[in-house]
């Protein structure tokens, strides 16, 4: 019997490896260096290094590797880019935010990096066990990040809540994997898909169906879809703002990365009607209740938490559009989803950066009323916040408009016009709370008892808001290069 040597293509996973090695280097440096700011900068520059191998990987033939456990296809690599950019920007925010609150510690950056590596693994995985591994690597680091501010009760509460409910979600996911393994005898997503296509009589197998339902529930937790979102407002509000920015974008993108791959490959030809309806309904209640609850918020950070739920709903519209009638539409739905996630990374991290900047203890809080004089106290920050709010609403010519455009278009192509219509109504509702921030910043300046002292803008966070604002506007005016990049995201 010939011995089969495993195919180990390390280059295919090089971005993940760079991120993990970077985490180890930071950990090592943490022991040597007393100035923890250096670690933050090291993280930022190291992440640029992780971005490097993504370029050749995008142009390389896509071969499964590590015995079909992972694949480095265009889809995975584009997600690598999204995760690395997210980690990079939120590290920049953390540099200022942690410094201001006296909690600049090396562990923070290590956790960010480890969590990023977990997200990347989720995007690359073609085996449910590896997906679970990535999910846990990501989540455990996030639990700690949420509770990172030891001196704050609400931060500790956030960590604990996230952990308990996250464990709940992991259990559902694992349970789902078990059901699917029981039904098909495999955990490899290609083999699962293949099994269904060769054993057509089992295509109504309730065991596999329940497994699918549990998988969807597991991911719905991670992407904060209603009714599995309960942890989100409390955790996002309690966690350090720099960590919230990272979670809101990164964890959501990772959840969608794995969900879309599994649905498209394992369940692309089977149960499509069922999961399309289920995902559509999830999308409707997620968008609607996220937006409506956000309306009632008087705190910008909490408002953004609810808004992130609503955005999960828009993204679910894109997922529901996956079983479209032809290949072109399917590719459009996937690239639209990725475009949305990238755009969401820019505008949402930008908005959280502004919140983090203003959230200096004692001086200004996260309440909506605290933003009253911003346009006079810090006109630049007020202006970029205006850009982010417009973009999150989906007003052209900002990047958020194109994200919504591509997703809703994909829904229409998949004969889900009604879903796109509900999405558009929701966008209109969201204008109320996004624009109320703008109104607060620009139009309520004549009150007497407001502070007028200028607000300092430290370099790292200034870079973060400038870069995100620039991309928000630039890719809004000219989305073509970004959508071209996203169209490289095909399954291997």
């Amino acid at each position, binding site marked *: 019997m010939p011995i089969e040597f495993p195919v180990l293509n390390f280059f295919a996973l090089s971005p993940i490896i760079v991120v993990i090695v970077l985490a180890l280097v930071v950990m090592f440096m943490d022991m040597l260096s007393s100035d923890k700011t250096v670690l933050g900068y090291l993280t930022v520059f190291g992440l640029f290094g992780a971005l490097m191998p993504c370029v050749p990987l995008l142009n390389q033939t896509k071969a499964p590797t590590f015995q079909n456990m992972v694949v480095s296809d265009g889809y995975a690599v584009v997600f690598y880019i999204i995760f690395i950019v997210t980690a990079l920007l939120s590290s920049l925010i953390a540099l200022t935010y942690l410094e201001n609150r006296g909690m600049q510690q090396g562990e923070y950056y290590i956790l960010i990096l480890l969590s990023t590596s977990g997200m990347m693994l989720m995007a690359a995985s073609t085996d449910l066990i590896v997906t679970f591994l990535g999910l846990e690597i990501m989540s455990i680091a996030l639990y700690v990040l949420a509770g990172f501010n030891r001196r704050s009760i609400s931060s500790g509460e956030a960590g*604990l*809540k996230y952990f*308990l*409910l996250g464990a*709940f979600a992991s259990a*559902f996911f694992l349970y789902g994997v078990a059901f699917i393994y029981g039904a098909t005898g495999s955990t490899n997503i290609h083999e699962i898909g293949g099994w269904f296509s060769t054993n057509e009589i089992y295509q*109504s197998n*309730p065991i596999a*169906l*329940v497994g*699918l*339902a*549990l998988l*969807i*529930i597991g991911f719905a*937790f991670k992407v904060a879809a209603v*009714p*599995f979102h*309960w*942890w989100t*407002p*409390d955790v996002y509000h309690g966690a350090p703002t720099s960590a919230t920015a990272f979670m809101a974008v990164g964890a959501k993108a990772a959840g969608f990365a794995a969900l879309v791959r599994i649905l498209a490959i394992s369940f692309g030809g089977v*149960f499509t*009607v*069922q*999961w399309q*309806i*289920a995902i559509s309904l999830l999308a409707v209640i997620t968008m609607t*209740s996220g937006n*409506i*609850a*956000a*309306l*009632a*918020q008087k705190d910008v950070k909490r408002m953004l938490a609810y808004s992130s739920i609503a955005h999960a709903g828009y993204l679910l519209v894109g997922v529901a559009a996956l079983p479209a009638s032809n290949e072109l539409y399917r590719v459009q739905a996937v690239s639209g989803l990725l475009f949305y996630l990238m755009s969401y990374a820019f505008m949402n991290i930008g908005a959280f950066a502004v919140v983090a900047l203003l959230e200096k203890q004692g001086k200004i809080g996260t309440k909506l009323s605290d933003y009253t004089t911003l346009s006079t106290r810090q006109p630049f920050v007020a202006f970029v916040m205006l850009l982010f709010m417009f973009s999150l609403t989906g007003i052209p010519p900002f990047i958020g408009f194109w994200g919504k*455009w591509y997703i809703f*278009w994909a829904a229409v192509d998949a*004969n889900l016009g009604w879903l796109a219509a509900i999405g558009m109504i929701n966008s209109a*509702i969201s204008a*109320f709370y996004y624009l109320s921030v703008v109104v607060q910043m620009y139009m309520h300046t004549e009150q007497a008892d407001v502070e007028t002292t200028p607000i300092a803008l430290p370099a790292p966070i200034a870079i973060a808001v400038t870069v995100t604002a620039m991309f928000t506007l630039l890719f809004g005016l*000219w*989305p*073509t290069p970004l*959508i071209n990049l996203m169209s490289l995201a095909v399954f291997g």
Partner: protein
Amino acid sequence: MIGNWQSVIDKQRMTNLIWLVIALPLAGALFNGIFGRRVGYQVVAKVAPTMVFLAFLIGLGGAFETYARHGKAQLVTLWTWAEIGELNIPISFLVDPLSMTMVLVITGVGFLIHIYATDYMVHHHHGETHPDRDFARFFTFLNLFIASMLVLVLGDNYLMMFIGWELVGACSYLLIGFWHDRGDDPQPAIEIEGGEAVQVAPLLSPAASGMKAFVVNRIGDVGFALGVFLIWTTFGTLQFDQLFSRIASSAEMYRESALHGEFTVISMIALLLFIGAMGKSAQIPLYVWLPDAMAGPTPVSALIHAATMVTAGIYMIVRSNIIYTSAPNVSFLVAMVGALTAFFAATIALVQVDLKRVLAYSTVSQLGYMFMAVGVGAYTAGMFHLVTHAFFKACLFLGAGSVMHALGDVIDIRRMGGLRKKMPHTAMTFYLGGLALAGFPLTAGFFSKDEILAKTFEYSPMLWGIGIVTAGMTAFYTFRAIFLAFEGEPRDQELYDHAHENRLAVTAPLWILAVLAIFGGLLGLPAPLLHGVGIDIPHAMENWLHPVIQQVGHHEVHHLPFITELALFLISGFLGVASIGLAYYFYIVDRSIPQNLARSTHPIFALLVNKYYIDELYNTVFVKPALTLSNTMSRGIDQTLIDGIVDGSAYGIAELGKYLSQLQNGFISRYALATFIGVLFLVGYFFLGGQFPNWIY
């Protein structure tokens, strides 16, 4: 040396840099808009014209290279702005003889007007200089206008043309209303010796005039936009080259069916686009905004409302010539509307007492000529007249502005007289521009107008008749205004005493434009006529624009017999001279004649002074009912019904939001329970087969 030139041309440097033609004025607008107030008016006055001049130089290079490649069109694509499904929107420019002609007119005349405006917008008073309060804002808008107009003419598809079309409209609105704090301007009645005085309606305030221009243009723009949509749905492209080659392949067929009384889709497109042109180029019935647009600063009247923006409709039709050739029925309509507009506007211009309004109605009338030309298929002649008109009408408007500047903003010719002695340069250039407008033999305006009339005669002697009568009136009202303003005795001694010639920044552009108004005719010498007397000089404009005009079918080009050409030439030349003579007799020799005439034809005179009461008619028929309707709607329906629904639903949603956040009570056990209920639902749904009845789709 020649070889070097050739290689320079081969590289098409300037053509590839054509985007700079737009970018430079845009940069000027941005600079003046952001820093203009801080850097002071002198810097603004240097930056704005310099940008336009640099754009002119690049345009000159582009035109030269276009000439060198024998007029072959060149596409310069910058980037793809957006790809949405099948709709691909590239940002690309078309460099061909037509666009280059427009670029040179816009930047060339635009540059002279910018120079003029640097002094016009400054008030000199007892040796002190007071720049206008919003000097920087003025030049920001003026540069922005140049950039927008260039987008209109350089775009290689109807979408970019439409974007430019809207942008110039917005700039026009901003500049007409530039002095937005000024009110309506009441006008004294026209006294007639021994007769009843004729009341004159007050001039609209700049803000109201801007609004009027904007609203009337919107009506046309709806037509234009519908035309563009129809092109898109019919042919699936908005790119000129693709679209025109698609139409050209079946142009003969469209033409034939249109000639047999069928209203084809091409006819519909042509009609809708023409509605847009009616608004932008001030043709019946949408011309009413242009006379009121004179409320803007005079350089604006010269640049936007005489030389460039209002000619956008002509440009559009010449660009779309294959569409109009394929729709002879609509082309006939274009020619008719043009001829009627030319005639009616000229009759109104006969009796106006405001120097700028005389010129405004004259612009409407001359635009009518151009539409008549393109309507009868003489696209080159239309473009030729567009160019010469830009020269002489800009010259006349700037001259009127020079008079206004000298008289402290007085523009009523009843208070002028004898100004030639005080303002020799202004008077001389005004005479030269006036000669060109009047079609005095051998001036630029004579050649271009004569060509239109000759081509019209070929098409329909009836239209020619309207045209020739209009030409006579044109010469008459032009010199009526000139004689009243510059000759005779001063009628307002105080004004006269304060009058003075303006500075070089004002007179130099006047002279350059006056020279162009006289010699611009060299661009289009009447080749058939010269050929008949044995001189072979080609018609430069026709050869230059030849690649742009697409021929339909193979019907041979037949010229009028030499003797007819000559007769038409002599008639129009004679008529121009005779009308000037008549004006001389009326207003210099015996001033009682016009008074007697006004008295004996009092009703007609009053009708003309009041512009056929068209404004009043529109007010009664459209504006007032619309206002009444919108008031009713806003009170009755909007405030009670719609607001009620909107406010009510907003309130309901806000309450629901509060309720939803109360569910978020912080207890983790509650969260787990709620989650579990969700899990039960979802798993249950899947377990039960996970299908809904079909009606959900």
